[in-house]
């Protein structure tokens, strides 16, 4: 897993309309986009970034840490396989609506090649004041200001809201890590938490969860190992049972996975919980030892 702010990036699907919009934003922000790929567009450039037909050709010519996939959901599996086989060690899969069996295959391939997968349905990562790897409005300073807290979020939109609250609190953000809203995602809260244990740039951690699954519960089991204050907000207290709430992963199944059960488990494991997003900024101000 690479959570460094200095990552060399390839954009798969760089010639798509949305990709172009976001790649420009990323480059303007200071992100090292070293290559792009798009079958049939090899030899061209976008914003001075060289484009290759295949990821393998890009890897021959550049040092690449992470690939960001601007690829429609049904083609993600092939694109991910291409990047994994080309030896790229970390993938950020943005698409919403990737077939879950494709995700399972991607995760299996990634295990074989020791590749880290973020997503699908993740907004990516932001390292405020330095670089942005995805589709978050990094350039808005009232949302993303540099500081000492790491945010781990399943949702992009709610991740924005929480980032804004943390910026408002004056503490600011060291890194924003998007986990993804799908039922099945490559990297979970638990794995990122462990990775952040020894991250000298991160002095506190905010978990932005929601109903469904047991990712928050699994993370709670590991909290005693983390010697940093941990805060959390969980969305979906008023959601009905048995209906996926927009995210494929936000689904209460049986009696487990409700927002209130997650809140209880996190609180019992020493997490400082915010009832509302506004409250989070106040709590951070009061509790966070700068």
């Amino acid at each position, binding site marked *: 897993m690479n959570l460094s702010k200095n990552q060399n990036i390839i954009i798969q699907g760089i010639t798509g309309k949305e990709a172009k919009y976001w790649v420009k934003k990323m480059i303007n922000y200071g992100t090292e986009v070293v290559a792009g790929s798009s079958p049939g567009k090899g030899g061209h450039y976008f914003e001075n970034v060289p484009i290759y037909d295949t990821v393998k050709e890009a890897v021959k010519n550049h040092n690449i840490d992470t690939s960001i996939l601007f690829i429609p959901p049904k083609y993600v599996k092939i694109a991910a396989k291409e990047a994994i086989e080309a030896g790229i060690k970390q993938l950020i899969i943005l698409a919403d609506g990737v077939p879950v069996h494709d995700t399972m295959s991607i995760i*299996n391939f990634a295990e*074989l090649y020791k590749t880290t997968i973020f997503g699908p349905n993740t907004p990516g990562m932001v390292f405020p004041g330095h670089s942005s790897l995805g589709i978050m409005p990094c350039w808005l300073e009232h949302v993303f200001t540099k500081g000492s807290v790491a945010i781990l979020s399943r949702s992009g939109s709610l991740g924005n809201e929480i980032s804004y609250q943390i910026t408002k609190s004056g503490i600011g953000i060291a890194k924003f890590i998007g986990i993804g809203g799908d*039922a*099945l995602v490559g990297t979970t809260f638990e794995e990122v938490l462990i990775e952040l244990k020894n991250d000298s740039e991160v002095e506190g951690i905010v978990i932005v969860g929601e109903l469904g*699954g047991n990712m928050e519960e699994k993370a709670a089991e590991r909290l005693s190992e983390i010697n940093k204050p941990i805060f959390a907000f969980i969305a979906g207290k008023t959601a009905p049972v048995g209906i996926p709430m*927009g995210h494929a992963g936000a689904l209460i199944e049986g009696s487990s996975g409700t927002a209130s059960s997650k809140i209880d488990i996190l609180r019992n494991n020493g997490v400082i919980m915010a009832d509302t997003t506004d409250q989070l900024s106040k709590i951070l101000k009061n509790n966070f030892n700068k």
Partner: protein
Amino acid sequence: MRLTEYESKKLLKEYGIKIPEGKLAKTSQDAVDNAIKIKGEVALKAQVLAGSRGLAGGIKFAADNQQVREKAEELFKTKIKGLKVEKILVEEKLEIKEEFYLSIMLDRTKKKPVLLGTIQGGVNIEKLSKNNPDMIVQQSINTIMGIENYHGLFLFSKFNIKNKIRKEIAQIITELYKIFKEKEATLVEINPLIITKDEKIIAADAKIMIDPAASYLKADTSPRYIPLKGDIGILANGAGLTMTTMDVVKELGGDPANFLEVGGEFYKKADEALNFLLDQKNELKGLIVNLFGAYARTDIITEQLIKVINDRDIKMPISFRIRGTGEKRARKMIKDELNQEVFLNLEDAVFDLLEST
């Protein structure tokens, strides 16, 4: 996407798994006709997508045609967990010796499918796993390796059952995995899997869930809308933010009328989404629009919303909270075209709306 019992069993049959003789009935006369063909006692099973259907009165048995008619009529009149019964599956009643359980489902924690089985089926598997976990065998599935007969043979070697039955179970497991994989299911479950008195193995009930994003299905492009009971309309971008908006409305004393999100690719269809909401809910007291754009550009959403508001001449109070991608232009549009302030904080926007409704 959950299939009904009938649809699930049809799939099982296609893959060579035995199911009871049976047919769907839409009327009580259909039910009688079906029962005559089956001969002997029959089971009448309401085809509704509700859990614990048996306990809720959705399964009845009938010994003769008169009973079939009466009980079918009764079923067509009842609601099972709030759902109207429109179809009944009329099936032969099985002579049960033993009830087993088999399932393959997506294990979100291990990120792999998991195979579960027990010879104490017919009960709620969650309960059994709590009370008697030793009776359940399970196996994580590596999707590159898949499932072969030896997996099932090994798993069921834990139980004291006849070799012939064990062999057949292993075969059923490999077929179940084929269904799971080929139909891109998130759950295939046979509960109970019946061993009859003459040692036939028959899937008496089945539940299959298909991934709504499965590669062979058309992408769902309808708005992500869920009706709720209250009267405060909600439109936001992204699932997490929409749920949070609902939570805040409730927290401040309001009652959300719906979940509606226009995040991701849906941001280009915000007008369609708002029209849909207004058509579904014509007695809203007010509407909260909460946008915090990432991929979804708030200016493009706002442009569409203003058009709908003007076209439909909407008079109810609408509170806007807009931040994120495209926020400057979006806020200016609301000010210029609706002559309204835009809130920066969600709680302020909700509070203001609840005050004015």
